[in-house]
């Protein structure tokens, strides 16, 4: 648990552990921590995936994640948001993105965490390439 106002908005090539952000967001006046982990699925629309390769525009990505944090502060008054996005080669089941939102009450924390991942997928410059089980490699380039 941290007492200061540290926030984490980070791009990393390291493996992300599911509890990596818990201590960063939790403070003594909080009662709720909502965490979202995006994980690598073994298929997309039924087509088998072998692994994913993520690429980023790192300098801009961290700034855009921070911007999502500012939006959340303005909308819900929630200060304690942390997010980390992994890039490089990821295997099935590994965490690509982890977002943690801590707040005194749970309703806001759920809304803010759901909003955070929606916004990340809109404005944070990270791309993934599907390495399909059939050997093909394709950038995933669609809004979602």
């Amino acid at each position, binding site marked *: 648990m941290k007492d200061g106002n540290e926030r984490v908005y980070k791009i990393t090539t390291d493996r992300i552990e599911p509890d990596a952000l818990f201590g960063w967001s939790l403070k003594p006046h909080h009662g709720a921590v909502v965490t979202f982990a*995006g994980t690598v699925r073994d298929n997309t629309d039924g087509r088998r995936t072998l692994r994913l390769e993520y690429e980023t*525009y790192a300098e801009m990505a961290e700034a855009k994640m921070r911007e999502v944090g500012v939006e959340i502060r303005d909308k819900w008054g929630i200060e304690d948001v942390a997010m980390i996005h992994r890039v490089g080669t990821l295997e099935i089941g590994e965490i*690509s993105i982890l977002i943690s939102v801590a707040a005194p009450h749970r309703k806001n924390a759920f809304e803010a965490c759901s909003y955070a*991942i929606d916004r990340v997928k*809109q404005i944070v*410059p*990270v791309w993934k390439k599907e390495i399909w089980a059939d050997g093909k490699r394709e*950038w995933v*380039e669609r809004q*979602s």
Partner: protein
Amino acid sequence: MRIIVKCFAGCKDAVGATSVSVELPAGTTVGEAFAGLIESYPALGGYDRSVMLAVNRQYADRQAVLEDGDELACIPPVSGGAGPQ
């Protein structure tokens, strides 16, 4: 003036490089610069409607005017996070 163009994902594949340096007349807009890139790298044409363009790490309108030393980034639709929805 001279600007740096950064290319990612499919745009990078179309250009064949992560970064190129281009010489442009003063007053060139973001949109004009991208049109010029399509002339040099026709495979970029497929991104004309979907690409987002950023100047110095901020998303920019195509009407924005570039300045010497700017970093222009070609950003295909992003696909970070987890799968769709």
